[in-house]
């Protein structure tokens, strides 16, 4: 077919829709970026290292949410539950059973994924609002249970988790145990972030991603076209549980202390959603852009009170939903067009009554 020769370029264009950019240039840029990030603990202050570690973690959470919420259209308002499960499972396996971190982490991941599959069975059948509420209920319920089962979990007092000793070569390379400690958690989170981004990229460009987007668009049409919706939704849900669980496990040893209010808290659930929404729901780089924006601006305001920070978050949410419903990435792609008063007014009227 005459189309055959021209397939390559449009195919890449169609599959990536400009998200990664022109082929090899993007790969080079990514490699350079990664190298820079790898070098930060050598030259950056402790503050920068910590800030970035947290940023990586939040992006992982947001990207995981993006898989089930953005890509598949199943908006979860309790996604933090997997983070909390990962944190507590890791912590408890280490503290109560004396297991080494790697084993505990693997166990926690398995637990979270299994929980996702089991809870997904009933609640993935729910649509729209109802799914969102159910996830919220699951997260809040789990928080209550963990708080109350204090004999096992330490309850509201929290759980102390032994930190990890950094390997000697790291201490030597970074000059001291303190730097090595924060460096260790930095690299762990960075590794998790890279894996999460890779897996998300793979999903988006393979059958699974197509199926999920079809499900998001119209589940009945997708089913008739041959998409096994139940299976795909469950896979997406399980994947979206895996990464937060791993992040939770790393968080547990990083902070050395976890409590139900924090690791099962609404704050994380909300942040995940805001970041993805702000950056661009359903896109690969949305969570990254949103995460960076929100963290940087938030950090500037963190010097003020906690309440102002949260109030600011709230205001951002409201404004983003009203003015930037498709997120920064998508709107930026439209360029100048999107910022004319006429365009803004059109956007505002589009969903009103």
């Amino acid at each position: 077919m005459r189309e055959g020769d021209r397939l390559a370029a449009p195919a890449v264009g169609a599959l990536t829709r400009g998200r990664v950019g022109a082929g090899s240039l993007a790969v080079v840029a990514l490699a350079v970026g990664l190298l820079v990030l790898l070098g930060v603990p050598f030259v950056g202050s402790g503050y920068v290292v910590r800030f970035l570690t947290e940023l990586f973690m939040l992006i992982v959470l947001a990207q995981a949410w993006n898989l089930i919420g953005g890509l598949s259209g199943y908006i979860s308002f309790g996604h933090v539950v997997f983070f909390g499960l990962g944190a507590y499972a890791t912590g408890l396996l280490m503290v109560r059973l004396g297991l080494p971190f790697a084993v505990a982490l693997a166990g926690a991941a398995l637990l979270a994924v299994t929980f996702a599959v089991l809870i997904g069975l009933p609640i993935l059948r729910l649509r729209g609002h109802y799914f969102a509420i159910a996830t919220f209920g699951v997260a809040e319920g789990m928080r209550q249970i963990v708080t109350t089962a204090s004999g096992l979990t330490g309850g509201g007092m929290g759980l102390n988790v032994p930190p990890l000793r950094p390997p000697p070569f790291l201490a030597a390379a970074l000059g001291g145990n303190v730097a090595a400690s924060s460096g260790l958690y930095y690299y762990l989170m960075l590794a998790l972030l890279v894996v999460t981004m890779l897996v998300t990229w793979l999903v988006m460009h393979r059958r699974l991603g197509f199926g999920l987007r079809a499900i998001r668009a119209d589940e009945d049409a997708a089913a008739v076209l041959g998409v096994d919706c139940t299976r795909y939704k469950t896979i997406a849900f399980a994947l979206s549980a895996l990464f937060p669980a791993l992040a939770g496990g790393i968080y547990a040893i990083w902070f050395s202390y976890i409590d139900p209010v924090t690791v099962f808290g609404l704050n994380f659930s909300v942040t995940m959603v805001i970041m993805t929404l702000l950056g661009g729901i359903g896109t690969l780089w949305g969570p990254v852009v949103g995460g960076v924006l929100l963290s940087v601006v938030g950090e500037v305001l963190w010097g003020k009170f906690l309440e102002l920070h949260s109030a600011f978050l709230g205001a951002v949410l409201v404004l983003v939903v009203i003015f930037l419903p498709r997120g920064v990435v998508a709107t930026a792609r439209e360029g100048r067009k999107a910022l004319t008063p006429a365009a803004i007014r059109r956007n505002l009227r589009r969903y009103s009554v």
Partner: protein
Amino acid sequence: MDIILQAVINGLLLGGIYAVVALGFSLVWGVMNVINVSHGAFVMLGAFATYWLFVLFGLDPFVGAPLAMVALFVVGYAIQKYVINLVVRAPIYMTLILTFGLDLLIVNLGLIAWSADFRSVNTAYAGQGLVLGPLVIPYARAGTLLLALLASAALFAFMDRTRTGNAIRATRMDLEAAEGVGVRIDRIYALTFAIGAALAGLAGGLISATLPITPIMGLTYTGKAFVVTALGGLGNMGGALVGGIVLGLAETLGATVFGPGYQDAIGYVLLVLILVVRPAGLLGRAYYA
């Protein structure tokens, strides 16, 4: 046996509060397909309005609560008309996130203004109640239940007997048909949301008469509203009443059996169960997809 009976009484009284909290929430959801995640924040605002009316002007909360209700009506109308209306036909995640943002904003502004300290409305009759043998019916709670029932009755009458109320019900049943017969949907939406906010404010005022209040109290009540709405069915007024009572009883009886720590968890377990087993609720009909 006495313990059970007292738990039943407590459950009924608690259920009355839950019912009023949920009435507005269910109404807004059923008519506009908007889940107002900031509903609890309106409850909190009503509670604080009543508190300040008591502290500054000595107004008894049972007088202050209706006043708070009026204030919240106005606030709700404005918020719907100028903010929520912008996303009312958008994909659900947008309304969810918007109202969530509103909640964060309202609650945290409250924290900045009033700090997280618990405050109480200390009326003369605060700790007292009707004593029937081993059982106690606290006056404040009984008054709350009474007012809750009154408000519900007023709402039913409004929805059933007035033109506007009928317009609201019509909009709930079939948006396009209502539009077709000339109902001003934008006004109905603003009015519905205002009623929802007003009921939340009333509930908050009544709560302040019986429990300590704090700016972060709202989220729990939003959660209860979810559960009660799920139990009673979307937009179903009678269902909200019944659902509220059921939840109240489930909590107090469950706490008696399992221990007080699990009281809130019971609600969430119930919620997930209902959603999975019977999404239309115990009394409800079909829902917006």
